[in-house]
């Protein structure tokens, strides 16, 4: 058993040596002329502006997810519709099941209120969203 671990140990050593040699060689051989422009962020030639740590609204995430689900649905619908007549009833039922599953998803999202950008209904309105819920808690 220890012999097997010896192989792994050897592998690790050879890997470390190879990496060190390659990095050292490139460090020694390569010309180095740093400048402000060169060390700048590469933005396809544009001036980089502001910080990379920008915040997005988290609601874009849900919208992107919903979009992808229905995007893929349409993607499946088109080839199905092209050969619809030759496939018969089985394909129709299968596609109906597929659509029903996705429609349940849509109903869920609708009920959750994720289709509205401005949310009027806040289910668990406490704290600073208390006034939005429209009822006294």
């Amino acid at each position, binding site marked *: 058993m220890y012999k097997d671990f010896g192989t792994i140990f050897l592998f690790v050593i050879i890997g470390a040596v190879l990496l060190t040699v390659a990095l050292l060689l490139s460090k020694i051989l390569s010309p180095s*002329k740093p400048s402000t422009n060169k060390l700048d962020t590469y933005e396809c030639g544009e001036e980089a502006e502001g910080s990379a740590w920008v915040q997005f609204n988290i609601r874009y995430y849900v919208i992107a997810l919903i979009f992808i689900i229905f995007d893929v649905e349409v993607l499946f619908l088109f080839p199905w519709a092209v050969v619809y007549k030759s496939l018969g009833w089985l394909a129709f039922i299968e596609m109906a099941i597929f659509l029903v599953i996705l429609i349940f998803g849509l109903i869920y999202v609708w009920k959750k209120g994720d289709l509205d950008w401005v949310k009027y209904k806040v289910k668990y309105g406490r704290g600073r969203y208390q006034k939005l819920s429209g009822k006294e808690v």
Partner: protein
Amino acid sequence: MGFLEERFEDNIVTAKVDQLLSWARSTSAWYFQFGLACCAIEMMATAASRHDLERIGMMPRSSPRQADVMIVAGTVTLKMATRVKKLYDQMAEPKYVISMGSCANSGGPYSRAGYHVLKGVDQVIPVDVYIPGCPPRPESLIEGLLKLQEKIRHERPLTKKK
């Protein structure tokens, strides 16, 4: 400057090592995928299977950090000129520039009345090889790249400059 670059006297050893280094550099000159106008179509055709640039060791890179050669393929507008300069600055040494086509050489059809076109890309960055044509055929681009390889092969990276 690097550890070894331009630090040795001219003798037989440095001459041979220089030869090896510049040969390696010339035969693996990756170019920056950078099309500005219709010359870029010819550049793509040159890279594609019929003319196949990879057989002379050149392949396109999408980042200036990995590229050695910048092929300025097309009309350089004044707006683009600042970007071209910045992209050239961001390439790693050693770097070379090929000016491809009349527009990049001298402004081409816009050289007199073009109010928005840079009259030759050599006004903002140093150019190694000029390729004439509007646009140049893939054969002439390959000719220019071979000329550039010849130029690189005559360089002495380690020897002190006189």
